[in-house]
């Protein structure tokens, strides 16, 4: 590995850090696909706890599920919801994002349609509701659930159930965390800031249109068997290891 390669590789990597995405028109895009440069960039990425997602049109940088030194828009949002009252809102927004990802992760034909039609906030609300109702019945099935175990889950279910869908009051309508639609708007705004979706018809019936960048991230992260195994291991691993470490 010579100095020139390292220099070019770092240029690519730091551009990725700065811009998150390098598209095919960037000079760095060409540079990246030099095999030696690519190897070095991948090494840098791995050492700093990040993944590089390659596709024909762009490369993207995201954090790994474990031990990244970097903060993200997601960890920011979490930081801002540390209090008991607001924490459950953060949990609910995470659930909303899960439902949204599930809603768009479908076969090719459906994907093309979703890219055109988007997912309306109200349709998403129904999806989340299905999930929460399911959780509700899981909790009811075992007496220990919700009392000693899975207390957060119960709290989230209760919060959602007693939340209004929407409010008529236009002034507080936007960004109102006390309604389901308000929560969904918050979660979608996070994805919008990340550059993964476009929000259309904001003043009417808002719809989230997933961008290709998002599909590529889903494909890389969740459609890969090895990574799936990794996620499974992470989820069942003991809390102690990575437990809510506020420094990351």
């Amino acid at each position, binding site marked *: 590995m010579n100095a020139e390669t390292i220099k070019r590789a*770092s240029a690519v990597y*730091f551009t990725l*850090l*700065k811009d998150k995405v390098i598209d095919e028109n960037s000079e760095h895009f060409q540079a990246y696909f030099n095999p030696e440069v690519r190897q070095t960039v991948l090494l840098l990425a791995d050492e700093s706890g*990040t*993944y590089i997602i390659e*596709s*024909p*049109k762009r490369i993207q*940088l995201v*954090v*790994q599920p474990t031990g990244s030194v970097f*903060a*993200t828009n*997601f*960890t*920011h949002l979490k930081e801002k*919801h540390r209090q008991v009252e607001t924490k459950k809102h953060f*949990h609910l927004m*995470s659930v909303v994002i*899960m439902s949204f*990802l*599930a809603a768009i*992760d*479908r076969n*090719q034909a459906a994907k093309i349609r979703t890219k*055109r039609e988007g997912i*309306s906030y*109200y*349709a998403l609300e129904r999806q989340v509701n299905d999930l929460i109702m*399911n959780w509700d019945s*899981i*909790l009811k099935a075992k007496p220990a659930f919700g009392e000693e175990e899975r207390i*957060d889950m119960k709290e989230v279910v209760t919060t959602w159930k007693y939340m209004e869908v929407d409010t008529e009051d236009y002034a507080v309508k936007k*960004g*109102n965390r006390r309604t389901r639609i308000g929560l969904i708007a*918050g979660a979608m*705004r*996070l994805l919008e*800031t*990340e550059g*993964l979706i476009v929000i*259309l*018809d904001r*003043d009417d*019936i808002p*719809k989230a249109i997933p961008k*290709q960048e998002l*599909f590529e*991230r*889903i494909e890389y*992260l*969740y*459609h890969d*068997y090895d990574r*799936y195994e990794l*996620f499974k291991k*992470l989820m069942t691993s003991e809390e102690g290891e990575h*437990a*809510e470490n506020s420094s990351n």
Partner: protein
Amino acid sequence: MNESWEGFAQRMQRLNPLFELGRGMEVGELKPYIQTILMQVLLTIFYRELNDDDHRRKADIKYMVGDSIKQMRLLADDKQIERITSGLLYQGKEEYSKPFEALYYDEIRQSWETQTFRYVTMDELYTNLEIGGSIVYKLTDVAQEMIFMSREMAEEFSITIEQLYSMQLIKNGNFRKATRNLDHLISRVNRLMANEFTFQKEMINNPKILLMEEEWQRADNRVEIEKQFEEEKNHFRTITSMIEKTKRRNEKDDLIQKELILLQEKIGHTRQLHDRFAKLVIQNISYEMKLKAENPSLFWENSLVSFREHFYENWLMKEGVQGFNEIERVLSPIFSPKNEFILPLDWIWGEQEFNETLLTDVVIEDEVEETITRKRVTNWDSVIKAWSYVFQYLQTYGEFSLADLVELPLEVQDLWFEESETIDLWMMFDKKPLKVQVLHRKEDTLSDEREILLYKLMMEYPQFQVFEGLKIFTSFDHRAEPFTWYRMKITPFKICVQEEK
């Protein structure tokens, strides 16, 4: 099975959208008229699409509905208009934005199947995905087919049939109809072209779609496609020569001459479109070949794992979570790192700055404030006053050149600098031609600044209501030189009005 069953499922799938149009809408006494109204609206959208008019947002469709109802001498309140509009866009509750569904009987499988369709869909060419904003709609193939069907062209509809039809019309001297017929042809080729564009985008982003069955066949069709275009050219040649002949025969009749010139221009335009389309198709094919040859790995089959099934349905839904850190671990890698510290390797960057965090930090707690777009407060009174002089000119002379600004009385000139909006509006008019349709709308449905200006002008000075329905456009003023006006360099274009035929 007798022949009455042959292709039955296909027939029904073609008819269902017609049967379903306006069905199940609760619009009270308007019920018997609903289909006529909706058909008129679809046609309006169709022609706007044809004329590259982007007034096809939901608010515009609402206006079309209201307008059609008025034209047909019916009465409707806002609620009914709202209902009819959303009923064209979605089935059932608007909030869920669901497509329409209808059943048909599949004679081969001998079972009932569900068909899903929409009448309108997002027009990617006009919807601004960068800024967000509102969806601009276009007709779906289904809705277009309804329009073609209503012209008794139900059989296999191809470009060539349309051309033959045009030739027939020209032979019979029905020039106007032939011109209109070309509109359909243009729309058809535009649509095919848009499809090719989408396909191209899709293919580059995600080459796997080439594995979808229907797309596979494209490659084999190449020769056929080229042949088709060759034929196309011949047809056009025939049409053009036919027009030439007719032109010579009717040399004395001015009206026919004019009609023919128009027709000729349109055919020229249509030809160009076809050529562009042909190029696009061939280009896509070559892309496809290149992708396949150079990156075979792109086509490896989908993995067996999916988010929807393995993460969401089988885990999150079925099992719930022990703690939310589980969800957080799954979600965290969807996000990119944000660097908030200065990296020690600053030599890489030299003078480049890390100011990104400043710009994109999500301040969720203050989101109420954040989402309300901070609108510049514009003193419209001043803007209107300044512009009223221009429109007075327009009303009398039909055009106003920017160069004439200098001729206005000095106190009027002062008005032009009170509000920056006043000057900015000039640039707005430099965009596409504007068809004035504001008088009967509510102010808050107007999104185009030019429309707001016209609306306010009409409210303030009723004499300007004559502009309703006219077309306002700009053209370059050839007789004037670029000039400097109070330190602004101004290109002297002029604003003109034209009556819409």
